[in-house]
Structures are given as C-alpha cells and as structure tokens.
C-alpha cells in the first residue's frame, strides 16, 4: 500500500487581473515561500519539485521547468512539469503526492500558476492551424450547449446558475486571496449582466487571473516535525476520456463518475454528501455546480439543482461547496485546480480563516479540463488514514 502523505504547507498569491509587480519566477516564489513558511522549511529542505500549468502559449515560455528550476531551488534536485489541460493544478498535486506515497521522497514542493496577463487566454487556448474542422472558438461556445442540455435533461429552472454565481461571490468576500470581490452581490446584479453565451451570463463565468498556488507535501516522518497541523491525503485519482466519440455523455461524463468512485473507494467513502464536510470543486461556469453535484454522486441524476436551490452548498449548508469563492472568483487557469486541492487541505487543517467550515474533517478537491474529459481529485482529512 501507498505510504502516508500529508499537506504540511500551503501558499497562495493574491489573485488579480494583472501582477505587473513581479516576474514569472517572482510570482511562483511568492506562493512557494508562503508554503515553505507554513511548513517551517527552507528551499534546501525540499527533495523534489513538481510544477504544473496549462498550455505554454499563455506565457510564451515553452517547457518552463527549465527556466524555473533554480528559481524554485531545484538545482541538484528533480523537477517535473505536468500538463493535463484545466485539471492540471489537481493532477500536479496528485503527481507530487505520488512522489511521497511511493516512498521516493519525504518533502516535495508543488507549484501551479498562470500569468494570463502576459498574453490573452482566448488566443492561447484556440490558436489553430490550417487543418481544423471546428467552426467555433472559445470555452463559452464549447460549454454553453452542454449547460443547455443539462437544463433540458434535468428540468432545472433558469435561476439556478444565478444562485451559484451569487453564493460563490459572497464566499469570495471572506477570502483575502480572491480576485473578484463584489460587495452587495445579488441575484438582480447577476441577472442584469449580459448573456455572453446564452444560457451563460457575464457574472456566471470566471475571471482571468494572474496567480500561483503552492503546497509542501510530506511523508509521515516529515509531517511529525511540521509546526502546523497537517492535512492527510486519503485518496487521489485521475481519469481521462476522448473529447469526441459516438455516444459520449458530455453533460455527465463517465470520466468524472469513475474518478470520483476511485477516490471515494480509497478514502472509504460510500455516501459523499454525508461523509464529506466541504468540497472545493472546479466550477468555471456557475451551472457546473449542479452538474458536478450529480456527477460526483452528491445526489441522483437530475437532482443537483435542487441541492443548490435548497442552500445545501452554501457556507452554512450541510455540504458547503467552494467556501473560498471557487473558480468563479479566482481563475489563474493552470493554478485553479491546485487552489481547489489546497483550499480543501486548509479546511481540514482548520486554517481557512474567515471562510472556514466549522469542524471540517474531510474535504474533496476537484479539477477538470479539456472538453470536460480530464479529471483529477483528492480527498484530504484531518486524521491520518
């Protein structure tokens, strides 16, 4: 069986539209140093570094682990770079955890980031060559039809997406690192914003952010010496499926269902809604909250919107989702998945500050990417498994 692995340090930068005050290395080092401080360690204490980000076209630095190696204290050490599209922040954490679970290393620094302000996200995500069969560009154009399909299938009323948009932005007001802070956010405010890709309104989408998130993962021995309470990894899982094939369910993708089943099995969870205290789930368009509630087994198919409507996912609900404000409030794309994983860890460490869910002992971190085809998840807990 895998060796125990704990999160002993978490560090984040403030998420902002632009961070013109730092270099790329400076941005990563800011998050990494905070994670090291939390873990009571210095650069030289680290055995290996795992970094992750979305396509290199964002910053125009190809295979940036080379340029960043010594900036992250990795001279004489192993450094790897993970890329699994939007799920990458989560996959990167899982790969870093794997280095500890395998017994190869005792202290691994993992960092994910995006500095979107160096170029333009739509350009970087949709540059295509002369051979393309798609007639549509942009993430909204891709995902909006699936949201419409969900609404039709489940019979969800139109205002559910608005409720999520309000709830996550209210949570963001309690998170010092969050990017979008909209005092007085309300349904009326969200509904007054234009439809970008109907049925998605402007305030039902995520922002573009600069930012980095880092964690220090540790073996049992190393965790014993950590100054702050660790979060223990109870399970990690990843799943991928092709983007286009006959019979693919794009509303409730099998990859997500299988990934959740795998991570729950490892953590011994049979009833996620009851056994998980708080979840940080990748929701870049508000409607993905009810869709993922179903995909992740928090309720039956077609029932997700009822949980949202009934307030179950609010900070004071029985299963708070995205207490941090989520991707809807901060979205440095390559880091967004790791932020979910890190916020889950902060919750079970009791270190989430104003957005702490009281008594959280077990938390889910979730990320997805591509055409809702790449999934990465972990379960962390306050107790050693």
């Amino acid at each position, binding site marked *: 069986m895998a060796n125990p692995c704990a999160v002993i340090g978490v560090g984040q930068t403030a998420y902002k539209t*632009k*961070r013109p*005050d*730092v*270099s*790329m*290395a*400076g941005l990563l*080092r800011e998050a990494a140093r905070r994670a090291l401080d939390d873990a009571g360690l*210095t*650069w*030289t204490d680290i055995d290996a570094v795992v970094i992750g980000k979305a396509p290199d*076209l964002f*910053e*125009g630095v190809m295979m940036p682990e080379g340029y960043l190696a*010594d*900036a*992250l*204290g990795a*001279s*004489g050490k192993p450094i790897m770079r993970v890329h699994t599209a939007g799920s990458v922040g989560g996959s990167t954490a899982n790969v870093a955890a794997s280095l500890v679970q395998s017994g190869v290393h005792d202290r691994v620094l993992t960092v994910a980031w995006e*500095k979107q*302000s*160096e170029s*333009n996200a739509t*350009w970087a995500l949709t*540059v295509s*060559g*002369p*051979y393309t*069969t*798609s*007639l*549509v*560009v*942009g993430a*909204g*154009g*891709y995902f*909006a*039809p*699936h949201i*419409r*399909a969900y609404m*039709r299938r489940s019979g969800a009323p139109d205002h559910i997406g608005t409720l999520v948009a309000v709830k996550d932005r209210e949570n963001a007001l309690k998170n010092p690192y969050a990017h979008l802070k909209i005092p007085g956010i309300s349904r009326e405010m969200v509904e007054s914003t234009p*439809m*970008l*890709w*109907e049925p*998605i309104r402007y305030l039902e989408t995520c922002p573009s952010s600069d930012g980095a998130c880092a964690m220090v993962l540790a073996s049992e021995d190393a965790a014993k010496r950590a100054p702050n309470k660790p979060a223990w990894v109870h399970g990690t899982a990843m799943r991928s499926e*092709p*983007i*286009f*094939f*006959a*019979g*693919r*369910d*794009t*509303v409730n993708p099998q990859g997500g269902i299988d990934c959740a089943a795998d991570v729950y099995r490892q953590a011994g969870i049979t009833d996620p809604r009851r056994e998980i205290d708080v979840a940080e789930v990748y929701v870049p368009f508000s409607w993905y909250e009810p869709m993922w509630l179903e995909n992740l087994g928090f309720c039956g198919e077609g029932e997700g919107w009822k949980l949202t409507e009934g307030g179950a996912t609010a900070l004071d609900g029985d299963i708070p989702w995205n207490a941090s404000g989520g991707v809807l409030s901060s979205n440095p794309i390559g880091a967004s998945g790791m932020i979910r994983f890190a916020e889950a860890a902060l919750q079970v460490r009791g270190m989430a500050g104003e957005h702490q869910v009281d008594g959280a002992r077990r938390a889910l971190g979730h990320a997805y990417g591509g055409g809702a085809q790449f999934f990465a998840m972990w379960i962390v807990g306050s107790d050693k498994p």
Partner: protein
Amino acid sequence: MPSSDVPSSEPTNHVLEFPGGYTRSVGPVIGRFLSELRDGRLKGVRTRTGRVLFPPVEYDPDTGDDVTDEFVDVGPVGTVTSWSWVPNPRKTHPLDRPFAWALIRPDGADTALLHALDLGVFELGAKPPRRLKTGMRVRPRWRAERVGGIGDIECFQPEVTMINAPSRLEYRLQGGRALDRFLEGVEQGKILGHRCDVCGQVIVPMKGLCPKDGVPTSEEVELPDTGTVTTFAVNNLPDPRAPEVPFVSAYILLDGAGLTMLALVAGIPADQVRMGMRVRAAWRPREEWTRSMANIRWFEPTGEPDVPFDEIKDHI
C-alpha cells in the same frame, strides 16, 4: 539555411505569433538590472554567500535563497568564458552576418552573461576568425536608443545591424491522412466519415481510428449534409467566422453519424433555434471551394419538423 532546419522549400502555412508580443512584468531584481542597463550601466546582485550574479536573478541559483538587495557595478569589460561561431545566421539571430555567441563574465562578477559577439564583416559561411578565443576581453556595444531590455546591448564589440527578435515560428503542418481525405471530400462538397468495425458508429470527421475503441478505421461512408441540432449556445461575443452577434454555435448530429460536430447555425434569429431543429449545410458558392471546412459557412434550418428530444438525448 542551417542543416538542422526543415529541408523543405514549401511555404509555411501556419504562424504562431501572439499579436503585439507578450507583456512581461519583470519584478524588482530584473527590473533594476534592466533600468540600469537602459542608463548604460551593468549591475550584478550579491548573494547571501557573497557571490555576484550577473545577469541578476531573484534567487541564488544553487540554493534558491533570496539574493541580497546589494547591487554591484560590474564590467563593462568582460572575459569570454566560452563561445560558438555562427557561419550562417538564422533570421531570429541578432546579427545577419557571421558572428559568435559568447558567455561573457564582466569584471567583478562571478557568473557569465550570454550575448552575441560581433567581430566584423565576414562572408556567409566563414570559418571562425583566429582572434576569437576563450579569455578574449570584450566590451558591450550600447544601442543608442535603449528601452530596458537585454537588447540594449546590441552585442559585444564593433559595428552591426540589429534585427528585431520577434517570437514568431513558422510551420509546414500536415493534417494527417484521415483529415486530408476528409478535407478532400469537403473540397468536392462531400462529408466523409469512417465506420468503426467494433462499435459500428460513423465517426465524422474521421480520424483513421475510433477514439472510443482505440482501433483503426478505414470503411468510408459519405454522409448527407443534413442533420439535427442536439444542443447549442447563443454567443453574444463576436467571432470572425460568425455572420453577426448574437450567433448560435450548435452541436449537429449529421444524419447517419454517430457523433455531433460543433458548427455555426444561421439563417434564423438566434432566439428561435431549438434543440431537435433540422438543419442543412449552407455551402459557399462552388467556385470558392478550397480544401477547408470553411466551404461550409454554417448550417441553416430545413423547415422539416423538429426531432423529438428522446431521439437525440443520447447524443448530448
């Protein structure tokens, strides 16, 4: 052309270039260096162990520790610690005649800077000049108009023509055999797919394999240009390919196909598009056809009755 380049004379057909160039914030250490450089000064930074890094970075490359805030004058004279000679410069290189790349350690620094070293006029293909040696002493040649970039030093040593260094890469891409065949069909107004031997579904555009079963496919099937909208979005952000805003992007299940294609729908007000609506491809005039999906402008309603949701629900 250097021999490690593509040996093809075909024109490139794809350019990767972020319009206007990336906007890089440089942070305090690189920023200080570049600001001093713009003023014509070379500054290194001291590490906690007392070494002087040049060019300065925010961290000790050996330990990852922050550097101190002590900036130190170095150079401007420096020593070549290694060099290479470029007999045939690339268009991305800073000089258009033979020159050297050199690692140069300015006096007072403990590390070296990489830069171009100009040794005068040479014929293309020239051998390295004899005076080019490790240990050679060199000075920066400053650009008259400096902007705060590593190119503020034109090069080390005499006269030179500077070329911009754009981040532009050119490619000769191949779509692959399956896609070539598909586009060949589209060029003739045909939509081709492959039937998978295992699942029996028609994959369009075909890829030469079934992504679901992971097996090769080769049985060609011609599909009609009619189909059904399974689900769609109304886009209110402009797209160069769309006729107007708002426009509709839709997943269309071509008749006989096993999976949907993402395409534009037009010829109907956006708020009247429906799931289950029957559509037909709107082709450009035949004389405009090329080997490209652009031959189909978009899909338009056929006017047939809508397909019931039950019949399309397994395709969303």
